[in-house]
């Protein structure tokens, strides 16, 4: 069965600090990888996704993530966070084939202080 682990449950940063959120997954086959963001009071929005090709993917709002297959990891990074990045971040994975249900991690709540 697929599973996703996010190691940081709560992260507090000051504006302009760099961000890295860890994500590891467990699955025996080929997967697609996603980071979703949930701003306060809003729905899940896609930040970025990896299906194949360049393991370094760039998403919206300056976020990027690197897929390291040997480590089963897909860490999210941003060089300089802003107050508006305060949100909950979810790593998710689905199988490359089939009906592709998403399996989510527990989420990381990021608070950026101005």
């Amino acid at each position, binding site marked *: 069965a697929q599973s996703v682990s996010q190691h940081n449950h709560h992260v507090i940063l000051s504006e302009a600090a760099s961000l890295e959120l860890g994500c590891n997954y467990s699955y025996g086959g080929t997967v*697609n990888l*996603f980071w*979703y963001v949930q701003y306060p009071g*809003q*729905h*899940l*929005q*896609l930040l970025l*996704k990896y*299906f194949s090709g360049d393991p370094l993917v760039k998403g919206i709002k300056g976020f990027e993530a690197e897929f390291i297959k040997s480590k089963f990891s897909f860490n999210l990074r941003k060089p300089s966070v802003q107050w508006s990045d305060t949100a909950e971040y*979810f790593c*998710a994975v689905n199988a*490359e*084939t*089939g*009906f*592709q*249900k*998403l*399996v*989510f*991690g*527990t*989420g990381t709540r990021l608070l950026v202080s101005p």
Partner: protein
Amino acid sequence: EPEVTQTPSHQVTQMGQEVILRCVPISNHLYFYWYRQILGQKVEFLVSFYNNEISEKSEIFDDQFSVERPDGSNFTLKIRSTKLEDSAMYFCAVKGDSSTDTQYFGPGTRLTVL
């Protein structure tokens, strides 16, 4: 422009009552999903729906739950006899036919069972 909307945004019901949550895709999508998020917990897959039938369901999706797409447009989730533990945010998601298509999430329905 949202890919999917959900109604109602908030539903309060008494334990044992039936509720119907609705998902309205904006564009043509072939895959439909329901997920839920209990307060403070991760997003969990409930069911996927393709070609007018359930394609996969989780262990959470027991006999109290059902889904249908009665008019070829709205996608509904029915809970026949709600329990306190059904209180959660329920998210609908939609996806196109390609395996690389993104799942777009609706704004969610907050269900409160008293």
